[in-house]
């Protein structure tokens, strides 16, 4: 997994609260191989039913080209557990998501793919989105080690992240390998459970 350290990049604002993972990647694209899903990002928000790009949608605006950061509204990426919602964004270059809150499953899925979800308060998220609308192509800087987000206005916000998740992201570490280092504990648990819950 690719490590996440710092990211200084163009950011896109997404204003809708509760933007669900069906909007990030509609279900009809999920059964295809990952490399065939890349064009499905925000598909029905980006295109009209007759496949014409909607010029008003941020990812269709040239000024936001090369964006790597999303600043969203509350409960971003709620709904379905589809990990494709993370991978399709990562495959389109988007690796950090800033919002007041996230869907729980999406939040966990990010860490499995070298992507960073950042919770900031609703007022600051709103302010960042306003700044990004006002100056399309404006950049945000994220420093994971320092746990800071620097807005286009130069204001620095510190964010919280679990040290476990932070370490894994900084190293690009794989959770399965880490878990296997606890194999003795897992075996001990299984032996205990065989006694206590023998019907399983």
């Amino acid at each position, binding site marked *: 997994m690719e490590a996440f350290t710092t990211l200084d990049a163009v950011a896109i604002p997404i*204003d*809708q*609260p*509760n933007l*669900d993972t*069906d*909007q990030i990647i*509609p*279900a*009809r694209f*999920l*059964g*295809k*191989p990952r490399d065939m899903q890349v064009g499905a990002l925000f598909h*029905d928000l980006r295109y009209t*039913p007759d496949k014409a790009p909607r010029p008003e949608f941020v990812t269709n605006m040239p000024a936001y080209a090369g964006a790597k950061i999303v600043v969203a*509204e*509350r*409960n971003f990426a*709620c*709904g*379905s*557990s*589809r*990990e494709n919602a*993370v991978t399709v964004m990562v495959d389109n270059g988007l690796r950090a998501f800033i919002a007041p*809150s*996230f*869907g*729980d*499953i999406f939040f*966990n*899925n990010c860490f*499995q*793919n070298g992507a960073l979800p950042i919770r900031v308060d609703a007022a600051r998220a709103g302010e960042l989105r306003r700044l990004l609308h006002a100056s399309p192509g404006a950049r945000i800087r994220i420093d994971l080690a320092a746990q800071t987000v620097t807005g286009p206005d130069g204001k620095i916000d510190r964010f919280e992240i*679990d*040290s*476990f998740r932070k370490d894994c992201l900084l190293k690009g570490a794989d*959770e*399965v390998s880490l*878990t*296997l280092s*606890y194999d003795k*504990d*897992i075996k001990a*648990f*299984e032996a205990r*459970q065989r006694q206590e*819950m*023998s*019907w*399983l």
Partner: protein
Amino acid sequence: MAAARTMFEKIWQRHVVVDRDDGYTLLYIDRHLMHDGSAAGFAKLRERNMKLRRPDRGFATPDHYVRSDSRDVADIADPHHRKLVEAIRTNTAESGVTLFDLGDERQGIAHVVGPEQGVTQPGLTLVCGDSHTSTHGALGALAFGIGSSEVAHVMATQCLWQRKPRAMRISVDGELGEGVTAKDVILAIIARIGTAGAVGHVIEYAGSAIRGLSIEGRLTVCNMSIEAGGKAGMVAPDDTTIAYLEGRPFAPKSAEWDKAVAFWRTVPSDEGAVFDRDVSLDAASIAPMVTWGTSPEDALSITGRIPEPSTAPDAAKKDSMKRALDYMGLVPGTPLEQVPVDRVFIGSCTNSRIEDLRAAAKVAKGRKVVIPSWVVAGSGLVKKQAEAEGLDRIFRDAGFEWREPGCSMCVGMNGDTGKPQQRIASTSNRNFIGRQGPGVRTHLLSPAMAVAAAVSGHFADVRKLA
């Protein structure tokens, strides 16, 4: 004396493998349900050259991509989808996971099959690569959905790294009115707390109205915990739970049964256990519900009118209401009962169990649908039971299509989708934009209310049809 603990706390503590200083817990997973979408997890495992740690703890059934009008894999037109349904055969055969395949009457939607087979039990941890895994909490299990990387992690280690969520109790007390079902209860709850109302929490549903629900009803309530933002939802196991499990194929037998029951009796929250949040609703105040917008929180009593954006508390909410009304093609102020419906879908992991079909058939009996309407049973066994009771006859006589088990039109991944601008009354769980196909307008409601719409051609109060 030990401190009073919630049911969630008890199940959590019993499954801790390692507690790290950084607040992360390695949690043991007792049951892993798999479906045709789990092929990604198997692929990740194969990439690492690893085997399933505990195939005996895995149970699989194809549901998302299967056709609702054929049981033959060869009939699946999309080659990628066909490959996924074929992959579940080869993957389970190679790994030793129990499979309920197409053609086996035990096949169905994973969240219908787990409880039906007795795989889901009180006091267990259960995961599946699907957000509606919260359903299984109805039997007093800690059950939640995960992504495909975590699916692979569970396959490899039978564990997951978790940070402990908070506990929330939602109590519904009193008597439910005539025509009011579990679906109306959960829609009323989500309308009350919002679609992000339970983010970061495990919900325990409590109170006399919840205790009075059958297991099928509890499964419906817990199913939509995710639509309230909850990590999981659960109901304390009681006599109803134990009676439901007795004799199920994967439930414990004889001496083990007694041992298991004794344990299950210890699972409910202790008297005086403290929750991080408490919400309560009066059962008598809940009416049959219908959603009007593009989020499950946009739910109204059938006696209501389409809301006016001008009444929104703030500009952002007003804007999102306008967008939702525009997508849904609705005019503020219209009585819900005057909104015409184009199509009806009865099915999904929310409402496709035998009790749902009985409730629907009760309303359908002796009436005729006036719009295309489908019934998709949750499993082959539900379908068989319904046929034994003559429910299929009632549905067919009323003009419903009686189809084969799977997720079908809830998510449309098998091609069962509506047409743009079509308005569908659906017993499923999500009314998201495009959920049932691009441009499709989904309204969530109970099976009885879905039939009321099917025979009326518009939303109708099932209480008036009785």
